């Protein structure tokens, strides 16, 4: 996903001198290609996330299109007030990019687990949350944002993710995009009533599990959501009786609680079943595969109890 980001930035910066990339001293072997080409529009601010967010706000106030780059929760938590006051309140089109979503840096320790970032960023009134399921969605999200300038938090995994998208249509705010449909034998009417909405990297795991277990639930990606998408997203949510949400993030303030809040606010009949990282994972340090196992076991048992697995 980070490769897709950098390739998109290089292509865009070629045609638009307003594009500028900032990093807080991260991105080794990732950002060099951009930096070599556009040295004037590449700033390594040093290990200083508060300054990076403030500088990005200042650049955006002068009409530039800044993208800030870091990993984990460094570009969100460390500079939360700068994002809240300087970027979001002034409605500036700064894209805060974070690599290593969820427990991608599992072994590096709790300091590197980005598992509360969604709750912090999505309470900001103007912030669009972007959680691409694959590299294609990274590009589509960036295209959308380029045409719809606003504060955006882009939550990326690492590199080498497989393609999951079934179509190359533009990605829109609050919309859902099918990543997997059940094999024949399941009537589309039945399967449409229950679905899985998976954000970010978990989509890959969910699709693999659905395929392996022959689940009858459709799997969707939700690439662009957050408070500005409340109304649009509620339309999609209302199309289902049951929505199982999956995320590599804690339940508190994450995507599942977002879906529940939207459903409650709109008095939808949709029942949301949130599958999120639990207490048995938070604070634990291990490989990502290991830390995501309880999440997938939880998903499997939910699918079973909802009658989606034979």
């Amino acid at each position, binding site marked *: 996903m980070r490769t897709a980001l950098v390739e998109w930035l290089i292509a865009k910066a070629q045609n638009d001198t307003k594009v*500028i990339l900032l990093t807080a001293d991260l991105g080794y072997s990732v950002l060099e290609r951009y930096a070599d080409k556009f040295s*004037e*529009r590449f*700033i390594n*601010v*040093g290990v*200083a996330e*508060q*300054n990076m*967010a*403030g*500088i*990005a*706000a*200042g*650049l*955006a*106030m*002068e*009409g*530039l299109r*800044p993208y800030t780059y870091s990993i984990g929760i460094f570009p969100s938590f460390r500079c939360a*007030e*700068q994002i809240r*006051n*300087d970027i979001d*309140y*002034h409605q500036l089109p700064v894209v805060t990019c974070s690599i290593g979503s969820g427990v991608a840096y599992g072994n590096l320790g709790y300091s590197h687990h980005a598992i509360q970032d969604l709750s912090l960023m999505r309470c900001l009134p103007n912030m669009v949350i972007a959680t691409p399921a694959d590299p294609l969605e990274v590009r589509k999200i960036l295209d959308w944002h380029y045409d719809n300038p606003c504060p955006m938090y882009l939550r990326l995994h690492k590199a080498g993710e497989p393609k999951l998208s079934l179509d190359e249509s533009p990605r829109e705010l609050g919309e859902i995009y099918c990543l997997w449909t059940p094999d024949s034998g399941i009537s589309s009417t039945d399967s449409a009533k229950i679905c899985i909405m998976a954000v970010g990297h978990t989509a890959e795991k969910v699709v693999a599990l659905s395929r392996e277990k022959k689940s009858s639930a459709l799997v969707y990606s939700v690439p662009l959501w957050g408070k500005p998408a409340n109304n649009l997203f509620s339309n999609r949510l209302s199309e289902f009786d049951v929505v199982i949400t999956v995320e590599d993030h804690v339940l508190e303030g994450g995507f599942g609680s977002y879906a529940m809040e939207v459903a409650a606010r709109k008095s939808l009949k949709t029942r949301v079943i949130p599958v999120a990282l639990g207490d048995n994972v938070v604070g634990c340090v291990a490989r990502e595969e290991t830390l995501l196992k309880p999440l997938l076991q939880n998903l499997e048992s939910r699918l079973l109890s909802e009658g989606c697995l034979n």
Partner: protein
Amino acid sequence: MEDTQQIAAQIRELSLRLVYKAKASHIGSALSIADLLAILTADNHVCNLRTHDDPNRDRIILSKGHACVALYSALCLKGFFSEEDLMTYGDDFSPFMNHASHYVPGVEMSTGALGHALPVACGRAYSARLKREDWHTFVILSDGELQEGSNWEALMFAAHHKLDNLTICIDYNNLQSLDTVDNTLSLRPLDEKLMSFGWKTTIVNGHDHPELLSALQDSKSSNLPSAIILNTQKGKGVSFMENMVAWHYKSPSDAQLQQALKEVSGQ
């Protein structure tokens, strides 16, 4: 140039009336920078503020957003909005909020949390250079807010990138929320710190207009980012407010307002 003493007196008068009317705080902080704002806004050659939306205007960013009445008053005197609009200050939903608000014409960004404006100013100064535009950014900082680490990140950045189109004016009145800066968390030696960070540093009497004018003019022709340390008095111009922490919070009574207005108008 208009008589800057007169402009400073008008800024003080309007600030007092605003704080009185809204029963607001921070009058001491506003009086402290009235002279600086008078010099900055009186002459377009010092700071180009012909119109508030001219892309080539110089940018004044008030980092110590709690002193907003002084900035609002200066911008009102500049003609960016009417005194009638200004007097909505502190009303429910008025754009003239009790901390600097970007909904007011001429206010470059909303502030109130300290340590935010200098990083943003670095971004704006960097942008001007990138776009080959010839305008200057002035940031008005308090002394107490230099205890925020974000300022020192930005001080390093501006020096590293030689942002010579950036000037900071530090209102060194040596009073912060509870006590003196010296007693709370001392900045001394501030000039040496700034110089060692790579900033052209000047110390002036922050109420001496010729000194202020000369330092501001020099800062525009420097090849380094410039820091002007203004030795000031919190509450300057109103005898019973000068150097008193209490006037970080209190708003004047009827009698105190009348007395203060007399003093600032030189009567």
